[in-house]
């Protein structure tokens, strides 16, 4: 299969008088992890619902591999809603098989896949338990399995890591990695910037129904880079104040953050000044955190 592509073009949705999604456009390529970020009420859930065809857009179109979303037949979605919920009285395996068969899996295949994932998430002994007898965390794992058991073409996860312990976060990340390797569409919506930063290749930040930032994670980071460097040593670095070419942003006895005053001067000049005066343990280009970018952008926009 060629690379999948989900295109969102000029999507607009109104609920009565309020504009929930306004002229939204972005593309999700198969094989990348797409992060849809934004503050509460930005229109994330509505956008996801439109992609899943639960609600219809007022304007704009959603294309899957160039074909209108409405016309594509047999497209399967996996969805993990932000608020988790399952049939409380159903048995784990029964419910997973039900969701699997709703997505065109045969009964047998659904059963096999369900058991495989249950095993992987360490829940094999709860196969026949009633859902309401499980703990909240376990229920959440069941909900994950329900979302990707049928190997969907488009997987949409709303806050996937909320309330999950670190071990299961790792397992989940592994599973998502496998899924991504199949070049399928993966959309994650989250408030947890560290998670998004670690997981997403591409992010789209929306606020007040509009896209305010869209691009590859690496490009965005480059764009917001402050040309800052970070240096750390075992010994005292206070002599850095004597170097004229740099301006110090943050300092600590053994760790400094600085920028080159003249952006044209290469970093190698700094190293030549440094020569022999200290043993350097760590030197890196300071990448802006997504968290900072997010807060800066949102605050900037709301000021305007």
């Amino acid at each position, binding site marked *: 299969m060629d690379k999948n592509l989900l295109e969102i073009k000029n999507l607009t949705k109104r609920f*009565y008088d309020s504009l929930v999604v306004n002229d939204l456009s972005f593309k999700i390529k198969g094989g990348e992890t797409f992060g849809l970020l934004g503050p509460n009420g930005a229109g994330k859930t509505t956008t996801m*619902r439109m992609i*899943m*065809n*639960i*609600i219809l857009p007022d304007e704009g179109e959603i294309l899957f591999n160039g074909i209108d979303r409405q016309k594509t037949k047999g497209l*399967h*979605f*996996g*969805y993990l*809603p932000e*608020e*988790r*919920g*399952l*049939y*409380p*009285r*159903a048995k784990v395996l029964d419910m997973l098989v*039900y*969701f699997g*068969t*709703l*997505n*065109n899996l045969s009964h047998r295949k659904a059963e096999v896949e369900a058991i495989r994932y249950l095993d992987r998430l360490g829940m094999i002994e709860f196969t026949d338990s009633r859902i309401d007898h499980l703990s909240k965390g376990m229920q959440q794992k069941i909900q994950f399995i*329900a*979302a990707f058991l049928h190997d969907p073409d488009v997987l*949409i996860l709303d806050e996937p890591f909320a309330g999950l312990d670190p071990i299961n976060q790792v397992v989940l990340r592994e599973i998502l990695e496998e899924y991504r390797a199949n070049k399928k569409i993966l959309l994650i919506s989250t408030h947890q910037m560290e998670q998004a930063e670690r997981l997403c290749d591409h992010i789209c930040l929306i606020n007040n129904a509009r896209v305010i930032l869209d691009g590859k994670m690496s490009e965005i980071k480059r764009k917001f880079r402050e040309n800052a460097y970070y240096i750390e040593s075992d010994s005292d670095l206070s002599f850095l104040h004597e170097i004229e070419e740099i301006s110090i942003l943050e300092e600590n006895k053994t760790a400094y953050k600085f920028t080159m005053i003249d952006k044209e001067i290469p970093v190698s000049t700094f190293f030549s000044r440094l020569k022999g005066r200290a043993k350097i343990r760590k030197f890196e280009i300071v990448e802006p955190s997504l968290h900072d970018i997010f807060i800066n952008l949102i605050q900037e926009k709301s000021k305007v």
Partner: protein
Amino acid sequence: MRNLLKIACWEFKSRIRAQSFFFNTFVSPIIFTALIALPVFLFQYQPQIQTKLIGVIDLSGENLTSDLQDELNRYFHTDSRSPLYQILNVSPVNVTNYQNSLKELQEIEARRDSISALYNQIKSQRTFLYTNSQSANRDRQLVQSYEKMQLVREERELIEIELQRFKTVLDSVYKREAVKMADTLLISDNLDAYLVFNLDFARTGNVQYHSKNPGDFLEIERFERVLQGIITRHRILNDEIEPSKLRNWFRPIQIKKFQILQEGQKEWNFYIQLYGPLIAVFLLFMAVFSSSGYLFSSILQEKSNKVIEVLLSYASSAQIMGGKILGLGFLGLVQIFIWISITALIVKSGLFTNQEIDYLTLTNAFFFILYFCLGFLFYGAIFITFGSLSTNEYDTQQISQVLRMVAIFPALLSLMVLSDPESMLIRVLSYIPFLSPSFMIMRIPLSGALNKLDIILTIAIMVLSIIIVIIIAGKIFRTATLMQGKKVSISEVWRWLKHN
């Protein structure tokens, strides 16, 4: 379509395992049938093992005891076919008080007799004097005997008056003693009740009924019926009609009830004929409303725990809606099937004679299931719409309360349907989609001859209404299920209908 069936299957399976299904299918019909049948049973089949002893105080002297006994024997029997009522003539002839009075009366009567004899003797003596004009002292003797006769006559009249007066006294002594006696027997439970007939009972129509329990309507109604006949007969007798004619006039009548059917006539039993279709309507009602209750709770639950969002991303809203209605409708059918099977078992076990429930035909069963399906689809679509609109259990309860009242309305008119299933009012009411299934389920077995026009018409009306309701439901369902927590106003719903 496949998803629709899968959803239907899921809903069906998860509900049929629930305890509530067992309760609704087995326990509540038993309670319900018992509630209907028990009063009828208790009233109709009061165990009548013992013969009841009824006392009669007859002051009329018309020998009512045997009359009453005959009449009661004709109508009422115990289970072993022996007479239910035994009449006992309460008479105080052996009571000392009465005997004393009677003795006194006899003395007066003896005195009256002797004086009458004396009087007659004087009269015959005088006749002799008149006829023998030659006898000596005739004139003197005539005068003397005349005076004597005057005296005797006077005395006789006095005794006559005394006798009359004493007879009245005796009557009241008789009554008083008889009542005293009957009361004693009643209190000591030797009598179940006693009747008092006064002298003029035929004219006034008043009869006294004394019992420890004069509120027993069944008993009183029986006596009223029997006494009406007896009193009427006595009134006619007093008008000097020949007794043989009278007997002819009062020959008891018996009404046998027949129902006209195309294939012939059959005998008719009120309770079974009425209760059969009525119970059918109640079963329909219970099946529809228990399944609809599931529909409500299933949607509410999915709405509140967000499963609906996941479902909507897997299947279209039409599939979800259709699947739910289908699955739970099928559940209702299973319920009905279980009930029909139980009924068939009861029939086989011979609790009823076959004739009594011969409306349990395949045709009627077919129409029952047909109208059940139509009714379920109609109400199901309405329920699913309101279920998706409501935000909590309380709202849904209010709505289902209203719909329940509407749907049970035909059962309240069941007596009207029974008296004339094809009356204009009932026919018109049958055309209302909310009422149509219940009315038709009652009408078809009751009317005997199937009204083909009405059947076609109501089916058409139902199908059309179901389509309309499902279209409306589909429009509302998708939008409403995604709404959270907020109560939906009517104007909003109207806007959805226009916009979608």
